[in-house]
């Protein structure tokens, strides 16, 4: 009994909070379903604004179809898109949390398995990139962990479709290329992507860090609500400038021509090596799916 009491207290006297894997699986399953059925309000508002601003009649009608689609998906509780994505999961694990009852990663995969089965979501994962046999339950998830202070467990599920992921790109620029080089690479990537990632898109940009850090920054920036600029005024300016430039390209809704190619540009930065200027562009489709829970 003494031992069990001791186990509940860490060295700083904080209480250790137990969280059971059963609750984690259940939460992940629900997040997978909700992310695929229900468009977030911030994205819906951005689409409504885009509808007003688009000058192409075809483009306007496409945006209307996208808004109507979200409405049908919500009311009938079906996926907005048939590509219900790779389950990308971001975990923020409080240092004072103790996971009980099994492996955290297995609990997440069990949640994905259940969510994709019970929610009638498409199973889009092959078990080997070259042999290409479907795993049948959309596992495994791609999971990223962050250890943070506190006794909470935050889980974000961001189902990522193939169409937009395939048009993402990364480049190791020379530091001399500077911000102009970054802007050019972002524009080149969006233009080359054209209709494929289902515009109007949300563009995630990661600048700095290492090769993989830049890619992760870009992906994480897509988790931000679309009406939320970067907290740094300089980066927020860069986001605004990039959005204006992207929406001058003419790609438009579904790439059929128009003003609204992107709903938002999100940029995140990280310190870089003296020799490096990595820049990654991760493109999200107009659904920008992600849902989170704090346990």
């Amino acid at each position, binding site marked *: 009994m003494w031992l069990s009491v001791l186990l509940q207290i860490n060295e700083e006297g904080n209480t250790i909070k137990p969280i059971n894997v059963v609750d984690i699986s259940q939460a992940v399953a629900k997040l997978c379903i909700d992310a695929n059925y229900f468009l977030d309000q911030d994205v819906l508002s951005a689409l409504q604004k885009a509808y007003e601003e688009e*000058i*192409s*009649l*075809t483009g306007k*009608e*496409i945006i209307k*179809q*996208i808004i*109507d*689609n979200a409405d*049908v*998906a919500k009311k*009938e*509780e*079906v*996926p*907005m*898109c*048939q*590509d*219900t994505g790779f389950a990308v999961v971001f975990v923020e694990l409080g240092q004072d949390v103790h996971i009980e009852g099994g492996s955290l990663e297995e609990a997440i995969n069990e949640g994905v398995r259940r969510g994709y089965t019970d929610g*009638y*979501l*498409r*199973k*889009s994962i092959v078990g080997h990139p070259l042999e290409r046999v*479907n795993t049948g339950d959309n596992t495994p998830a791609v999971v990223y962990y962050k250890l943070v202070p506190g006794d909470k467990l935050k889980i974000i599920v961001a189902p990522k479709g*193939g*169409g937009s992921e*395939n048009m993402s790109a990364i480049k190791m620029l020379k530091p001399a290329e500077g911000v102009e080089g970054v802007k050019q690479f972002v524009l080149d990537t969006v233009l080359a992507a*054209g*209709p*494929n990632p*289902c515009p109007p898109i949300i563009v995630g940009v990661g600048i700095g860090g290492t090769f993989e850090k830049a890619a992760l920054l870009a992906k994480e920036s897509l988790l931000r609500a679309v009406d939320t600029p970067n907290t740094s005024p300089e980066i927020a300016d860069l986001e605004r400038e990039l959005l204006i430039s992207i929406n*001058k*390209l*003419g*790609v*438009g809704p*579904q*790439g*059929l*021509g*128009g*003003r609204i190619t992107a709903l938002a540009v999100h940029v995140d930065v990280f310190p870089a090596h003296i020799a490096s200027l990595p820049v990654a562009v991760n493109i999200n*489709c*107009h*659904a920008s799916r992600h849902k989170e829970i704090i346990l």
Partner: protein
Amino acid sequence: MLENISMTPIRLTTPVTDDIIKQLRIGQKVLINGVLYTGRDAAHAKLVALIGNGQELPIALKGQIIYYAGPSPAKPGRIIGSVGPTTSGRMDLYAPKLIALGLKGMVGKGKRSPEVIEAIKQYNSVYFAAVGGAAALISKTIKRCEVVAYPELGPEAIYRLAVEDFSVIVVNDTQGGDLYEEGIKMYAATS
């Protein structure tokens, strides 16, 4: 030329003839009625392998339209799950062979290769775009659904869909027009 395109849609019923296909122009809105066959990379690879071996195909392509799509599973009591277009470029290697056999149309999203665009011109076919990500809305235009080939491929099987007013836009026509090229030219800001 795009400015003059009417937003009033043209109704088209499958199987379609060359005469009808030849009248279509980029930017036109079309409502497809009749049958669409789904097919993605895996099904295309199988069809083209059969063609290579001189064997009969499980579906008669003449006059038909293929929809590049793989539906999500149908909920109980529903005809089909959500089913929007997938990226067409992945089928570019296979498409010219099917077009040569009489395939009259393809529905998907995204740019086609020069080889596909050439085959569209040569054999009188057409490429339509449906709205990517409008999969729940699109599923409401599907009135019947059955697997006709390769059930082992799951969502990648070939489904025969009976559709009513399935909404698409002409992207590549028999005249060599390409809406992805023309649309961007028209709306790119010069400043």
